[in-house]
């Protein structure tokens, strides 16, 4: 795992002092709100319905146990005892006071954490596969490149006032768990014909009010050239992205309007002028970063642990959790343990200070001090010995963290919605809770199989509804909340944007509508088909029929 050196620490200390000064200048009246707003946003401070909100970065979703405990400490000290893990692998606090935020940031800085560029029209926190470094299917750990991107993008002097926010995601595995095709830039690691590892560069994906799946600008860019290539894309975007209308300012609109061929031409031309410049990263330097993310000291173990098998026999709840939440690790005898933050009827992504501190401890005890945040608002202990899984499960279970529903219908993504968010048109959390309760029975969930429901409380799509197998968008219709359903979205390597099924549903009707869709799927699926597969096979009509009859 990357540890800060004195340069990183110095930079963060200076940044913490700088923001403290900015807050002081605002409170004294030296800065107007208009002048302060971009400065606070650049440091993750929003104003929400009830209070400020502070978004803390978890760079590429990786933390150590101490950092996780510190998040718990922040929740208890500066907030109301909880936090919300987001689809951007970050955490949001809902009640911090502006005049205390500088202190919270100083506390975070002691564990090398911060809120830098978690908002604003700059390059945001880079996201990646939550199983990086552990997944059996990965080509290479993407995090060394993410860390290099983090450094390159942090306070980039040229790209801090872009037309709009800019999000980069990286996957090191062919099974894309980072939704790279719906980011401003998606990087997909693969090998070229010469056997070298590099990246496919995908540009112009995004959600929001006009969702797009990104397009490939370059099939392969070598590792040494990645950073100059990113700089070329950003320069083209900074110069030519639209600034006349904030709803058309994302790079996806530029790509859509001028076409990917023209973008490619501009980027390649710019790149040809800077490719041999100082952003070319040497093999040596890359090796230093790869070394920082070296695998932990795994023990040589048998692939199977007899005690683990016995425990599964004896404890059906444990067996269920293993079946749904534990996945294969590349190292024999180890496993990846997913911690669901989706208890039945709970608030998706919320964790209490106690839970965060416990997970930090469990990471130290069972996972080489490594814990991850997923874009599906769950947590992961990536390197757990199979022999330890039962003990881990028991501890998680006692803290209500062992819901065995990963990837199932109750593993819902939901944005904060109108319960917190000033931009919302409807609530999303209560709806996710009611769906979760409706399908709470685990056997029923397992029968339904993998099904991704994603809910946003407005068109900004923070809840990724466009790429939910079933997506739900909350809207306001003449002063009442109502919900529009989309079907067929997918954030994986087979990315697709969902299609609107038809007229929206009232708050009272919508859960029944979801149930009707699922019942129809069960009636018409063939063996082994997931909801999304059935939808792709039969199309919208059979589902429309149950929603609207002959209407």
């Amino acid at each position, binding site marked *: 795992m990357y540890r800060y050196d004195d340069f990183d620490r110095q930079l963060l200390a200076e940044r913490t002092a700088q923001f403290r000064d900015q807050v002081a200048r*605002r*409170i*004294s*009246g030296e800065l*107007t*709100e208009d002048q302060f707003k971009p400065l606070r946003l650049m440091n993750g401070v929003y*104003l*929400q*319905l*009830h*209070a*400020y909100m502070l978004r803390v970065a978890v760079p590429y979703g990786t933390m150590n146990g101490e950092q996780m405990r510190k998040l718990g400490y922040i929740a208890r000290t500066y907030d*109301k005892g909880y936090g919300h893990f987001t689809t951007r692998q970050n955490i949001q606090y*809902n*009640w*911090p*006071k*502006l*005049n205390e935020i500088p202190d919270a940031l100083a506390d975070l800085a002691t564990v090398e954490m911060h809120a830098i560029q978690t908002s604003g029209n700059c390059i945001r926190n880079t996201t990646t596969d939550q199983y990086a470094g552990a997944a059996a299917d990965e080509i290479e750990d993407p995090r060394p490149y993410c860390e290099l991107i983090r450094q390159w993008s942090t306070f980039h002097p040229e790209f801090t006032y872009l037309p709009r926010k800019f999000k980069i995601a990286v996957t090191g595995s062919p099974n894309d768990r980072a939704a790279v095709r719906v980011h401003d830039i998606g990087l997909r690691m693969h090998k070229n014909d010469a056997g070298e590892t590099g990246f496919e560069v995908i540009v112009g994906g995004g959600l929001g009010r006009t969702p797009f799946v990104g397009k490939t600008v370059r099939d392969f860019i070598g590792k040494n050239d990645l950073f100059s290539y990113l700089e070329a894309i950003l320069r083209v975007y900074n110069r030519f992205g639209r600034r006349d209308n904030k709803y058309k300012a994302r790079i996806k609109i530029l790509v859509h309007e001028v076409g990917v061929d023209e973008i490619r031409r501009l980027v390649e031309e710019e790149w040809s002028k800077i490719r041999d410049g100082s952003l070319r990263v040497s093999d040596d330097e890359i090796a230093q970063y790869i070394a920082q993310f070296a695998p932990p000291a795994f023990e040589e173990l048998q692939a199977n642990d007899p005690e683990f098998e016995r425990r599964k026999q004896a404890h059906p709840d444990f067996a269920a959790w293993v079946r749904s939440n534990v996945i294969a690790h590349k190292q024999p005898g180890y496993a990846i343990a997913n911690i669901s933050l989706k208890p039945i009827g709970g*608030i998706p992504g919320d964790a209490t200070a106690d839970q965060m501190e416990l997970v930090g401890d469990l990471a130290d005890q069972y996972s080489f001090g490594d814990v991850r945040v997923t874009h599906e608002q769950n947590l992961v202990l990536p390197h757990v010995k199979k022999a330890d899984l039962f003990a881990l499960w028991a501890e998680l279970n006692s803290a209500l963290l062992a819901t065995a529903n990963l990837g199932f219908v109750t593993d819902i993504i939901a944005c904060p919605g*109108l*319960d*917190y968010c000033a931009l*919302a048109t409807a*609530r999303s*959390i*209560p709806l996710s*809770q009611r769906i979760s309760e409706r399908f709470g029975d685990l056997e029923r969930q397992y029968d339904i199989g993998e099904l991704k429901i994603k809910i946003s409380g407005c068109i900004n799509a923070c809840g990724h509804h466009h790429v939910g197998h079933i997506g739900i968008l909350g809207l306001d219709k003449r*002063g*009442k*909340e109502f919900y529009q359903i989309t079907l067929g979205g997918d954030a994986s390597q087979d990315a697709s944007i969902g299609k609107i099924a038809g007229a929206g549903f009232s708050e009272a009707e919508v859960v029944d509508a979801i149930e009707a869709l699922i019942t129809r799927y069960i009636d018409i699926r063939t063996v082994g088909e997931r909801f999304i597969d059935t939808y792709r096979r039969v199309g919208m009509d059979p589902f429309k029929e149950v929603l609207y009859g002959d209407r």
Partner: protein
Amino acid sequence: MSLQVVTANRLDDGLAVFMTADDGWSTDLRDAVCAEDAPQAEALMARADTEKQQVTVVGPYLIDVAQEDGVLVPTKYREVLRTLGPSVRTDLGYQAG
């Protein structure tokens, strides 16, 4: 026109507040000064949106309210949530008492 009051968030702690008759701010909607027509509402906004107020509150705007059993209540559900707190955490916000 519906009755209106001015709301904003307090600069230092961010909490939702409502403008009072003496140009101060209260966390309780029932303390708010009320506009009965458009000119009055405009005048209230002018008092709320000054350089001086900027050091106390952020982003003042008008909301619709109604008299119910002698007290002011917001009419839009967004503002109802704002005066109560998150509907999914009734232990938090003003609703928690």
